[in-house]
């Protein structure tokens, strides 16, 4: 903060001078940027014009031109054929276009929401680490807006509003936000993961063919991802669901090395033992465990705050939940 060496004390009459209430949302300062990935010094190949790109965009333009010409001709032909058929075709066409536009918009909105969750988490992380009060206030405010319409979080929002004018530092504010808004969602997320894993295990164990297994596991995992993301406020569409799936896979790859320590080894040994008893049962358990792991990674990716006070769900606990031991 650059300020003068010191400022003199002063008293103002409340009526005489403007007294601002403390700002609810200060201008959000930029979060500390992620460290820039180091560029490898690859010499410029000097390819000049990108012919491939030009080819594809040219081809695309040509095709869309042809398609619109064809549509135009068809509609004209239809109008010529009979008036009402033509107008019906025009109506249908506009319906198609509007629906397409809405789909695109929804996908864009879904992607934006997903991106927002990631940004909030990143900023919350840096605010907590650097004790940056304005940033933390901003994060809390955006979370409140994100969850403002949710009936299940009304209690938490009310609690949070009660402490709005309390004096807290950045990490305290984030802890309070986590406790009131995010922590109530965590057990739900866990049970979502557990129920998906259970379903996957059972279906794999009883299903007749490998293909059905694969399809079901894929579909169930995507469904779980969508429900988790919706729970934490992302409400993904198709594209953002795929993006989320990619994020989750990246997350598993990145953190896989850490988790390898105990859980995976247990899992492999356990799998070996059960596979000796029954191949199908072993498959089922393995797929269930995989789903659980994907679920944990998805929670990591979707949760808008880092784990400040609550603990990250652990594989072992979730397996116990799947097995109905909790």
């Amino acid at each position, binding site marked *: 903060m650059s300020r003068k060496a010191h400022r003199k*004390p002063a*008293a103002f009459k409340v009526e005489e001078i403007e007294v601002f209430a403390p700002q609810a949302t200060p201008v959000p300062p930029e979060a500390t940027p992620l460290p820039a990935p180091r560029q490898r010094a690859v010499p410029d190949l000097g390819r000049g014009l990108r012919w491939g790109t030009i080819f594809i965009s040219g081809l695309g333009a040509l095709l869309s031109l042809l398609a619109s010409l064809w549509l135009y001709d068809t509609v004209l032909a239809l109008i010529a054929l009979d008036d009402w058929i033509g107008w019906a075709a025009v109506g249908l066409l506009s319906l198609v276009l509007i629906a397409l536009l809405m789909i695109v918009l929804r996908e864009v909105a879904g992607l934006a929401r997903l991106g927002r969750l990631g940004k909030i988490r990143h900023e919350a992380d840096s605010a907590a680490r650097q004790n940056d009060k304005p940033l933390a206030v901003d994060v809390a405010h955006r979370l409140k807006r994100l969850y403002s319409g949710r009936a299940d979080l009304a209690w938490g929002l009310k609690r949070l509003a009660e402490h709005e004018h309390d004096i807290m530092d950045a990490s305290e504010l984030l802890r309070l936000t986590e406790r009131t808004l995010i922590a109530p969602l965590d057990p739900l997320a866990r049970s979502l993961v557990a129920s998906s894993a259970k379903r996957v295990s059972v279906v794999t164990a009883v299903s007749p063919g490998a293909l059905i297994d694969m399809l079901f596991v894929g579909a169930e995992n995507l469904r779980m991802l969508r429900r988790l993301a919706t729970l934490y406020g992302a409400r993904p569409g198709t594209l953002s669901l795929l993006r989320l799936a990619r994020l989750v896979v990246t997350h598993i790859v990145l953190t896989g090395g850490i988790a390898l320590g105990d859980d995976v080894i247990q899992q492999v040994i356990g799998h070996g033992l059960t596979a000796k008893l029954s191949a199908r049962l072993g498959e089922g358990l393995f797929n269930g465990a995989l789903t659980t792991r994907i679920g944990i990674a998805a929670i990591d990716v979707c949760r808008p705050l880092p784990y400040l006070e609550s603990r990250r769900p652990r594989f072992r606990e979730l397996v116990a939940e799947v097995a109905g031991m909790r």
Partner: protein
Amino acid sequence: MPISAYSRAAGDAFRSVGDFATGLIAPRVKLGVTGLARSGKTVFLTALVHNLMTEARLPFFDAAAQGRLMRAYLEPQAYSMVARFAFEKHLADLTGDVPRWPESTSRISQLRLTIEYASTRFWKRKLGREVLHIDIVDYPGEWLLDLPLLRLDYREWSRTALEQSEMPARKKAAKHWHASLGLVDPSDPADEAVVERLSDLFKAYLRECRADPHALSTLPPGRFLMPGDLAGSPALTFAPLDAKGAAQFSRGSLWTMMEHRYEAYKSYVVRPFFHDHFARLDRQIVLIDVLAALNGGQTAIADLERAMTEILGCFRTGSNSLWSSLFGPRIDRFVLAATKADHLHHLSHDRLEAILAKLAGRAMASAEYAGAEVKVLALAAIRATREGEALRNGERLPCIVGYPLPGETIGRRRFDGNEEFAIFPGDLPANPEAALKGWQGEMRFVRFRPPNPTLLPSGGFAAFPNIRLDRAIETLIGDRLA
């Protein structure tokens, strides 16, 4: 060490074994609240009890935030030789038609608060031990300045007291006392009138030092300024003398009489306090009014630093082993709080905490080294102000808004107590070192009227707003309510 010291130590050990055994049946924690005069002890304690009893929202006191507090109520205190903390009276002051700050207390007092809670621990739940008695002991911090006297004899004490009174900040206040001290010969036969005169002048000097423009705090013997019920007794009627190089004094001389009374003061006033209360604390909070000292300027700050070092040096801090909790419990959680944090905008709280941590520096480090949990907080047990921003010459000043007490001044403006003002108290130095070494910047901290009480629909008054009271409570007793 004389035999009596050993017997006392053995007595202490016996009693702490007894405490330990009672603790097994009825868990309790002995919480010490102290601070120098006018540091806000009474307000802190009233607010603490009131918050717990009214089930106030304390977001960072875990047991309350998790909804595990069932009930808190006052019970007859355990130790019957000490005054009870007049909680109801102080609360009535704060919630009266014209709210006012409770009168300061100048003696030790005690209160037992019992909390029923739901434990998160399996065994506590099963054994049904979900009750905690908190014995709160409130005592003046000045009394702690007496503890070092236990190690000084009269001759040594006289020398240090005289040396201190020669210091530039105090010399003027000590003028009358020095003058009459020059006329007295310590080997003269004892004369009650002389003793009384010297003692009165000495007390006047101490009082003068503590008054506002100086605001000094290291002024032992502590009981001279806060006599309590001992006022006028011989044990409180003595003064340091100048030995003027003489090594021996005859019986019946002025010196011997003073020496005798000094020893009486030690054994009847200081020692019982040490053994009955001080040596048996489990948790401690020390309240410090750093802002008043900053108002008083560099001498006041230097003096506060000295007082802090001496006070903090008295505590037996550290983590408890089974052995130590049996025979000599130590204070394992310790909170240092800069009170009246509501006189500052919260942007300056970090700086206030930094200054306090600097003041307490060495004592804090050694407590942490011994394994105690130490927390430094900027705290306001009752928050009397709101925050806002005022515009001056195009610059936004972070202000606090409240009703300043009548008689407070800032610049040339004098407040009458009936108008609300936005106050910008000046900037605290960013470097805490600078605050201790004569900071040139201007600061003025004004005291405010207490906030208006809110009546609860269910009767009684809602707990007052506070700043970080919940963090203080969590550090002090949070672990015992797990």
